[in-house]
């Protein structure tokens, strides 16, 4: 399999990249990690006129916690950087749990967090994680920067809220109130499989009390499923098995899975319910301790 012809530029600045996108009038495509784009080029599912490779723009490969506790992930931060980060392991459990489950270890060396969020694959891990965490994206276009809240970002399968001439340059996860807890579970038939169902849970907690709760799902709908509203039932409560059961059932009901060769819609709801419960039960304070 071979891509069709395209023009290629590898600008050195974000501004130059934006200018190329702008000139492309929608026929230009950003190449970051390329782990979804290049296969699509080879399968000829995508045939952009112009590829804008942002890998040579310096200073985008970071992830860092700011003094206020917010986490900032640059456009060229690879999945692997998050997987092997001691700081992430310590301070951001939802991302730490999801990172090793993204695709496979080799894809993780190349693929980017921000690129995956932008790809808006209904089965993508990071869009779900970002929604659960209540994150936002910083995007840059010809008129400068703006932010897009994750809840407004994923519009449909492979469709996001970016204009054709904008680049998502950073993902931001707000500082937790209290302690960040959470997890990520994914049912896949083998490493690198598309998810049958994935669940991202992000909690801010004070002891056993939930201060903020976010849940989002992948693989169980035409787009990433935002179940933050259902998760919010946890806020202000202590984590107990009974409230967990209620929330898990509500989240499962929020899923919109289709019956396919990975399972019936009922089965996928069952997985969602089970995974929500498993992650939440593991956060009950005495279990964490």
């Amino acid at each position, binding site marked *: 399999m*071979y891509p*069709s*012809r395209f023009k290629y530029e590898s600008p050195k600045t974000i501004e130059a990249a934006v200018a190329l996108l702008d000139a492309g009038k929608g026929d230009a495509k950003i190449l970051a990690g390329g782990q979804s784009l290049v296969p699509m080029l080879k399968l000829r599912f995508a045939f952009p006129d112009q590829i804008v490779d942002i890998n040579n723009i310096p200073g985008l490969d970071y992830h860092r916690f700011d003094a206020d506790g917010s986490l900032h992930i640059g456009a060229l931060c690879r999945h692997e950087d998050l997987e092997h980060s001691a700081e992430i392991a310590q301070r951001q459990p939802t991302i730490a749990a999801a990172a090793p489950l993204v695709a496979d270890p080799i894809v993780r060396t190349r693929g980017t967090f921000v690129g995956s969020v932008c790809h808006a694959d209904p089965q993508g891990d990071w869009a779900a994680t970002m929604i659960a965490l209540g994150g936002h994206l910083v995007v840059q276009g010809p008129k400068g920067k703006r932010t897009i809240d994750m809840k407004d970002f994923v519009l449909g399968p492979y469709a996001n809220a970016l204009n054709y001439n904008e680049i998502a340059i950073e993902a931001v996860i707000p500082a937790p109130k209290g302690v960040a807890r959470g997890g990520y579970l994914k049912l896949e*038939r083998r490493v690198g499989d598309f998810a049958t169902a994935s669940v991202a849970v992000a909690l801010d907690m004070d002891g056993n009390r939930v201060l903020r709760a976010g849940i989002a799902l992948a693989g169980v709908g035409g787009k990433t499923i935002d179940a933050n509203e259902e998760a919010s039932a946890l806020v202000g409560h202590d984590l107990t098995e009974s409230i967990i059961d209620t929330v898990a059932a509500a989240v499962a009901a929020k899923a919109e899975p*289709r*019956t*396919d*060769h990975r*399972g019936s819609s009922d089965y996928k709801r069952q997985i969602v319910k089970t995974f929500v419960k498993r992650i939440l039960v593991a956060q009950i304070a005495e279990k964490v301790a």
Partner: protein
Amino acid sequence: MSLDEIKIGGLGASRRRVEDNRFIRGKGNYVDDIVLPGMLHMEILRSPVAHARIKSIDTSAAWDMPGVRLVLTGEMMAARNLAWMPTLSYDTAAVLATDKVRFQGQEVCAVIADDPYIAKDACAKIVVDYEILPPIVNPVQAAAEDAIQIRDDKAGQVGNKVFDWEIGDKARTDKAFEDADLVSKVEMHYPRTHPSPIECCGSIADFDRATGKLTFYVTSQAPHIVRAAVALVAELPEQQIRVVSPDIGGGFGNKVPVYPGYVISILASILTEKPVKWIEDKTGNLISTGFGRDVYLKGEMALRKDGKILGVRMNTISDHGAFFADAQPSKFKIGLMHSAFACYDIPTAHMFATGYYTNKAPGGVAYRCSFRVTEAMFFQERMVHAAADDLGMDQAEFRRVNFVKDDDFPHRTAFGFLTDSGQYEKCLNVGMEAIGYKDFAKEQEEARKRGKLLGIGISTMTEPLGAGNSREYDILGIKMFDSAELRVHMTGKAILRTGAKTQGQGHETTWAQIVAHELGIPAEDIVVEEGDTDTAPFGMGTYASRSTPVAGAAVSMAARKVRAKARKIAAHLLEVSEEDIEWELGRFYVRSNSDRGVTIQECAMAAYSNMPDGMEPGLENTAYYDPPNLTWPFAAYFCKVEIDPETGVWDVLQFVAVDDCGVRINPMIVEGQIMGGLTEAYAMANMQYQTYDEEGNCIGANYMDFLLPTAWETPGFELYEVVTPCPHHPIGAKGVGECATVAGPAAFVNAVVNALSHKGVRNIDMPLMPNRVYEALTTGKDVYGMPPVRSGN
């Protein structure tokens, strides 16, 4: 003093592999690695639909592209009588479609260009106008009275049936069922799958107009058969065809057939007078080349209360896709499923088998098995499992009661095969001990109380490996023998060539070990060559675990012929008569004085420098080996699983494999074969299946959707060995390559079904994906057939 056979790398030595020296350096030489001067590149345009009449093909835009040298259509092939080719089973298969396309992925056009990128671009410029026809995607649709006929190209073809075929004693079997205390019945499906070596198929055809010689590099497990096929199909003179199978990146049966791409590349080279390389992409490989399985079974077993099996009925329906390329049962006796139940002493059996054409990929290759042996043994062990459960009898005990006993050999099976050796009960005992069988029932009971689901599965079987003999087995009339040619140089080093072709089995290492065993020449002094039809003797190739049983035997026999000549030379050198000469490994000596001797190396030197009067110089010989029977290895596999009751995900807790493949030439390599085979068994049980939607779209068209297990999912395997030498093989070896793939799947499925037996579940068809296991667990009902592809919404 005799040589230490292990030290010289003889029989039983876990000799490190010779071929690894190039593979670990990235210096293997696979077809795609070969570059010839002026070489062009071919890409195939495939049908996007499963069934359609071709109304027109417009290739003009493709021809107009810079760098395009040739665009071939079915019409152009037909003009040269190459639009169709024969299959293994006397059917025909389209090379490039002329009238209709009959499956998604069928070859429609080919573009030959300066590089593969351009060839691909040009394929996208070809416009084909299809008149869509209703697709038939399973045998039920194919059998319907008003079904559209897929093979309307074949004169005399009635409907979509490929064959009806039966074997066994029907009357006697019916009587056994009348006399039975209990009849155990099962219905199941062995899903379609694909062998899927990592390397796809490919070829380079290099036709030299000046000499008239065609050199053909090809990913073939059977290069000599390819030469024969090219001679017969393309009508090129056989002496002008040189077929070379270089290193092969895995075969598993996928690289036995002759594929359209090969034939097209040959014609393309003849027309362009340039070397033409065709390398299939993974989608092409998965959707168009030989699949495995896709068989439905109705099985019945007549049982006596005490556990004795009185008779077996099997009724199978197989889905062969658009062109029938399976083995023709009248020509290839193990071609259908009647090798089943060979390890059990069963008085009578009857089988009825029907095959249908469908609008799916053609073939029906033997995926790591001898044609339909995998299905036979899977059905056998699933039927045995169900029967034991129906009787309320222990799984191991039920098998023990019905096994052919050690002193009952030779044994004629209910379907007419002759098995010759085995220690079935011993293998069973070794496995039971290793897995802790006797404690399991208690363990399972306690686990259930804690809400955990444990299961144990057994699979035991003997299978026929190593076709021929030539009386009963042939391919397109060519008898199933194999060959070896051994040439000992004057310094006592040697070159060995065989008609087989290694694809990872390690022939370059093990064949030398057989020669070392026979002649005492250290294995490292022997180079092994295969795969070049200009230099290797004619052989039928490597598949169906036949290399060691047939080609390996030929190696022994060639070496023995060489030894016989060396003995005469030794008598000459030692100045005694031949009758006074004794042999020990590597050396002849005088019977009356063992100090007086000559080594095989000294004999070799003398063969070129000091041969007896009247003797031809040189020390070499060739053997063509026609085995007196198949070899019958035995496998006893035990699998212990745990199922997550909330998700249906199952994990293998322990897997014990006891294999008796007779004498092991290289234990390390044998164990490698078994572990690889078990992994494919695990894969099929769990995820590796090929399915189609109702339009005939193949759902496993790439590795995103066609799933193969990684190192992470694949369980560890514990291997045990029992040795019952094959009575007719020169060194007592039996085939082994496919045993684990054949016997393995039932062990996994039996274990999962066992874990759910208390819920009333008797069967879950493969693949045992978590959702299917969960469905069985929660409904208490069997799960049958293929997973649904997608819902209506």
